[in-house]
């Protein structure tokens, strides 16, 4: 009998549009915010007497127009993917962790130092060891923020931000002191990695393997959140903590687990920066990827799959900063102003979700 009544109770095969439109909301609104942020930035450019058309033209040219510019862009993408996951995973549990930068920097240091210990090892073992050390430090750093939240009620946003400062100070101290390569005179660095412990480029595309690992990590995280019971439990806890507690879900373990995973990815970002880009841990690691990653994660609405295209887009922006500085005679912080304006637009757009009737299934239903 229940089976007979079913179609009446709710047209489960309801028009595709009533299923699609609610999903479109998560796509349309971030796009609109991106556009609004770009418009606001254009006004800013006009105000300082520069042409927005030239600006966006240069971004396109430097970020996406040629194989060379794609190489430039992709070199920025790997750390952004990992840094964004370090924001997005805790965010699914309702935690705003903004200190990924600290875990990236310490992960890089761990990889650099581990590399000096692994000289002469088979490359696979050496790289594995470096990656593990980097992830372990990242896990320790970010999971402790989750644990502080659960055990002591410490605000994770403030804690993660402050811990990032501590991490950077610690990094500078160690690189300039105990772990410094005496030969690095102007730029304090750890000992350079041997050739066998460097990560090369992937065949066909001129980008290092970190990009591929980052993309796979995003896909894996999406599967974790959308397809496993663990991800489902995390979503319940992120949406309503009380409801999750009443269901007896292990909220504490979920929080620590998800922050640990995010920390592992941030550590991995540091590992790839050291092993594939810089060749040793030094001040170049402190490049703000952790902060741009926050923007990536928010633009992607903490959806790991959406992080991939967004990271490529913002990677392109970052890659164009040098060209903009040279051609438009603007400081290289200009791109940061642009990112900042997009971020403000994204944060503002959070308040309009659910306000538009066309995104509700009811709107499309035939009464």
């Amino acid at each position, binding site marked *: 009998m229940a089976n007979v009544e079913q179609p009446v109770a709710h047209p489960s095969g309801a028009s595709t549009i009533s*299923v699609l439109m609610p999903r479109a909301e998560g796509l349309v609104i971030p796009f609109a915010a991106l556009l609004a942020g770009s418009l606001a930035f254009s006004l800013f450019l006009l105000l300082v007497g520069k042409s927005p058309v030239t600006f966006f033209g240069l971004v396109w040219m430097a970020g996406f127009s040629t194989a060379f510019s794609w190489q430039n862009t992709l070199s920025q993408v790997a750390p952004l993917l990992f840094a964004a996951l370090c924001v997005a995973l805790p965010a699914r549990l309702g935690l705003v962790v903004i200190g990924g930068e600290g875990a990236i920097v310490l992960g890089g240091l761990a990889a650099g130092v581990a590399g000096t210990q692994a000289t002469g090892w088979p490359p696979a073992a050496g790289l594995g060891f470096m990656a593990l050390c980097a992830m372990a430090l990242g896990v320790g750093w970010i999971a402790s923020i989750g644990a502080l939240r659960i055990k002591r009620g410490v605000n994770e946003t403030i804690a993660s931000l402050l811990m990032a400062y501590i991490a950077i100070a610690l990094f500078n101290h160690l690189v300039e002191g105990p772990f410094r390569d005496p030969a690095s005179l102007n730029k304090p660095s750890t000992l350079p990695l041997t050739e066998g412990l460097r990560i090369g480029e992937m065949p066909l595309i001129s980008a290092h393997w970190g990009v591929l690992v980052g993309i796979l990590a995003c896909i894996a995280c999406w599967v974790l959140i959308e397809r496993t*019971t663990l991800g*489902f*439990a995390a979503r319940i806890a992120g949406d309503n903590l009380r*409801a999750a507690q*009443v269901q007896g879900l292990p909220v504490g373990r979920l929080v620590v687990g998800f922050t640990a995973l995010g920390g592992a990815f941030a550590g991995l970002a540091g590992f790839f920066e050291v092993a594939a880009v810089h060749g040793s841990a030094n001040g170049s690691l402190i490049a703000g990827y952790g902060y741009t990653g926050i923007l990536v994660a928010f633009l992607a609405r903490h959806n790991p799959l959406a992080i991939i295209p967004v990271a490529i887009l913002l990677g392109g922006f970052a890659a164009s900063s040098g060209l903009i500085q040279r051609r438009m005679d603007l400081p290289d912080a200009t791109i940061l102003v642009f990112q900042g304006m997009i971020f403000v637009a994204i944060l503002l757009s959070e308040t309009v979700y659910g306000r538009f009737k066309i995104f509700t299934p009811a709107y499309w239903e035939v009464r």
Partner: protein
Amino acid sequence: MSRRFKTPQGAFSVEALGMTMRFGDFTALDDVSIKIEAGSFHALLGENGAGKSTIVKAIMGFYRATAGTVLVADREVEMTDPKVAQSLGLGMVYQHFTLVPSLTAAENLVISRADAPAIINWKTERAALEAFLARMPFSVPLDQPVNRLAAGEKQKLEILKQLYLGHRFLILDEPTSVLTPAEADEVLGHVRALTRAGELTVLMITHKFREVMAFADDLTVLRRGKRVGGGKVADLTPADMAAMMMGEAPTPSNRQRATVSGKVVLQLDGVRAMDRSGLKPIAIDGVALRAGEILGVAGVSGNGQMELMEILTGQRHLSSGKIILNGAPYTATRAQAKQHKVRYLPEEPMRNACAPRMSVAENLAFRSFDENGGEKPAFWKDSTAMARNADSLISAFNVKTSSPSARISSLSGGNVQRAVLARELTGNVEVLIVSNPCFGLDFSAVATIRDRLVEARNRGVAILLISEDLDEIMELSDRIIVMSEGHIAFETPIATANVAEIGHYMAGHA
């Protein structure tokens, strides 16, 4: 058409004429007229979705009616926005509180004033407030942060706020849904005294016939957006009102109560914890819940029932003592709840039992999503099973939703409660912990939920029913315990239960 005029001193009348309100092609209100005489206490009855909220929102200017006029003190007014209504002296008290929880009562009152100065001279404000409270028939502690006040006191403060703002026409939207009968009688008694004195006109949305009979002068009944009846309360009986509301005489629930005397399932002895404020101790002793019985926990709001629920759901740290379930200590983990087949119906299901941004189908899966028949929780989520489960629960419990993939926050209160009930009562249940299950629900939803509870009891489920609605406790329980000031003050089987005696212990005269 006058835009602004000053309403007369004292109470004034408000009238809505031919109000029609359409949302798209849905007619929420169809040519409804209602007149509230100056100084009268008018009740507005109707089931959820009957159009009660719509008409008051139109009167208050939150909605612009599709057609119809509002007369204030017999003058036509264009209610373009709530500010117009407020400037005329119309105010509203909502079912849910609109106070700032972290501020004190005094601060809440002063900042609610439109003309609150940029720099507040607390000395003079304090003096003015005390003078104001001296004129009022009831009072609240001024210096406590509002989040420390019990629900009854918050509601009094809401009403005081309206009077403080000089509003002389009040719309009360289910003002007593969080109050005990005694508190409700007290608050409504004061409100009625103000109407009798010619200082106030009141329109009250309610579900409780008892309050209508005791306090209201007139009433209007809405059903499906139409006015279906009304008149002088003195000329009507509760049966008449129910008939108008439901469209037919309601069948009194003939609940069969099988006598099941089972073994003790749940025991609380020597359980100690702190209350929400962290100041007062909670001490639970001698609670034993048997299979096949409903144990009612009565008490005035704020006497530790909330904390008892949190203890039982594992949300509150115990300083000593243990919850014993089937002879073993219980800490409300998911594995234990599953093993002992314990389910929960917390109060305010949207706040305590649902994930508002997740879909109806997902919310319905909270109990079953990690089950695959085995001992260990499943790793992969089975979306097909989830959809099947949602379809069957939605039809079995008659949950009205546009689609299983709609957000649960788009459902009405009654349907949210039905969805949670469907989730928690389905499957193998042995212990059910319930808190204020019928808070703010309409007549028919209440009947369904109570029927389901008794039905579960008759199946042998042990039910602990924490409720601030004494009528509900008296109707459903086999045994009653009373909570007062954080401990169990009294216990009685239903056969010898006496409302006066229970009230005595509820009031703390132990």
